[in-house]
């Protein structure tokens, strides 16, 4: 929509009827779209099927008879709505903080010289390589020892400073924010924080969007950590709740399907909301001046 208006028409000299290249391009994009969306459509369709029809063979694309029974059961039998809220709170809160923490630190790494920078960056960068499964148990022990096991605290605070985010912001700032902007800010009498807040941050919209999407998805999908720190089933995250439903002896695939379809909605909404941030910020052209 917004993107269409921005793009200038293809080379006018060649316009007229669609070229072979155009047809191939659209063919390629449509084929790819089909491959990417097929499983999503299958899940959507299957979530409206009765349990015994989910694996019917040969498979039918449209549910017949269509039924809402899986959604109804999910919401009646499981605290799905609580899971949903918990997940949203955790994902939104940790993403908001992470974006701030990462962009600040990324800015420092990209645009300042300071003692110990190399070492500090090394330490940060090396933590990208820490396997999650190894950290989880010791972290739980540490939190228990220090009494910090309040579920929301434990689900949010330890994860608001992802090294990935800093790395990403540093890369981006280094590439796109010219030193002159900072110099100009200083000459105008801006504070360092003021420079960051009012001159740099606005240029970071695409990266902030990408980081927010990344962090939101990550937080949204974690399962092992909530499993260990959360005791009350009402405070489960969606990923944990659905894994529990699936892990029940009978593999309640029907409920998991309905839950997964509902669970996908917030991520899609976040993506749709942030897509302008993700892409359009860069094209304003201010960056290169």
């Amino acid at each position, binding site marked *: 929509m917004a993107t269409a208006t921005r793009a200038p028409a293809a080379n006018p000299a060649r316009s007229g009827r669609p070229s072979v290249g155009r047809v191939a391009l659209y063919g390629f994009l449509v084929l790819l779209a089909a491959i990417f969306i097929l*499983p999503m459509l299958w899940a959507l369709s299957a979530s409206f099927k009765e349990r015994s029809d989910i694996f019917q063979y040969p498979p039918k694309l449209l549910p017949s008879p269509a039924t809402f029974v899986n959604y109804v059961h999910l919401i009646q039998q499981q605290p799905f709505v609580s899971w949903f809220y918990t997940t949203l709170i955790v994902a939104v809160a940790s993403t908001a903080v992470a974006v701030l923490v990462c962009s600040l630190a990324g800015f420092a790494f990209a645009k300042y010289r300071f003692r110990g920078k190399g070492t500090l960056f090394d330490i940060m960068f090396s933590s990208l390589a820490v396997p999650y499964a190894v950290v989880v148990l010791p972290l739980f022990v540490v939190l228990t020892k220090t009494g910090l096991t309040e579920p929301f605290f434990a689900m949010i605070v330890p994860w608001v400073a992802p090294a990935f985010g800093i790395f990403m912001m540093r890369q981006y700032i280094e590439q796109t924010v010219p030193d002159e902007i900072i110099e100009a800010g200083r000459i105008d009498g801006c504070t360092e924080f003021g420079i960051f807040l009012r001159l740099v941050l606005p240029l970071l919209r695409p990266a902030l969007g990408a980081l927010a999407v990344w962090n939101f998805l990550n937080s949204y999908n974690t399962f092992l950590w909530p499993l260990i720190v959360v005791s009350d089933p009402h405070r489960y995250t969606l990923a944990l709740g659905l894994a529990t439903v699936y892990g029940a002896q009978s593999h309640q695939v029907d409920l998991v399907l309905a839950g997964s379809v509902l669970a996908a909605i917030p991520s899609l909404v976040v993506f749709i909301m942030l897509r302008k941030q993700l892409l359009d910020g860069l094209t304003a052209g201010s960056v290169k001046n």
Partner: protein
Amino acid sequence: MSGTLSVTRSAPPGGRDPDGRPRARRLARVGPRIAPYVFISPFYVLYALFLIVPIGVGAYLSFTEWGGFGSPQWVGFANFSRLFSDADFFQSLRNTAIYVALSVAVIVPASLLVAQALNARGLRGRDMFRLIYFTPVVLSPIIIALVFQLLYDKNFGLINAVLKAVFGFGGIDWLGSPGWAKVSVAILVIWRWTGYLTIFFLAGLQGVPRELYEAAEVDGAGPLSRFWHVTVPSLRPVTAFVVVVVLVGSAQIFEEPYLLTAGGPDGATMSVAQFVYRAAFQRQEIGYAAASGFTLFVIVFVLGRLANWALGVGRSK
């Protein structure tokens, strides 16, 4: 607005008494020397508390035998010597190396290609395509595994059915044969992450100034040559970033093989991360898990540094 926060430093001090400054002005005092430390401190405080400490604990645990309960027993290097004679561990290392190689060699170029296609001038429905390409990462991994098990099934799967209809053969045991199972996992990984990584390239592509292309076109460069001489160099930073992320991410790959094949048949698709998980949460050998996790950490660390060095990503200014 800009007057309130950004007082002093270059401006002459006003007639106000220095101690009566509002808090905002004190912040303003933080000069370029101190500022970076202030900026990175939130991260490092959190990092020290919630990552360094657990890593230290994990490192300690790798020298112990511990089932997760009671006090760990110090066993010195026993876990490591067992690890280096564990055929499963080496198999999982090999598998992970394959996943990493495939991810870097296939996903990175593929997402660049898709981004390039999406960036075509005057493309209709760009938003829709972008959204669709993004859907694989929002779908619950459990459901993804379910769908792909159906697709891959030897007898009832769609893929074999299509192969049979088009090429006349379709008896591939996608999940059952050790070789094909790796391919199946790799296809799933490509499917799941290509669309997502496309976003990064797309952002990069949109940042390439149009004038560069136009200048190249004036010089008579064809589309391929423009791609090679304008796009690729302009995307170098973003490519380097994506490569490091894919490298580090795929070295820790867990969900895809775990859910699709449970690491089988006979460990043919097991990744190191799953090996760690298995030791910790299926065998309750947390000391051993810590030792294997620590080894993975060292390998990924070294690889990350190498990539970094080769691509110049992490180079300090």
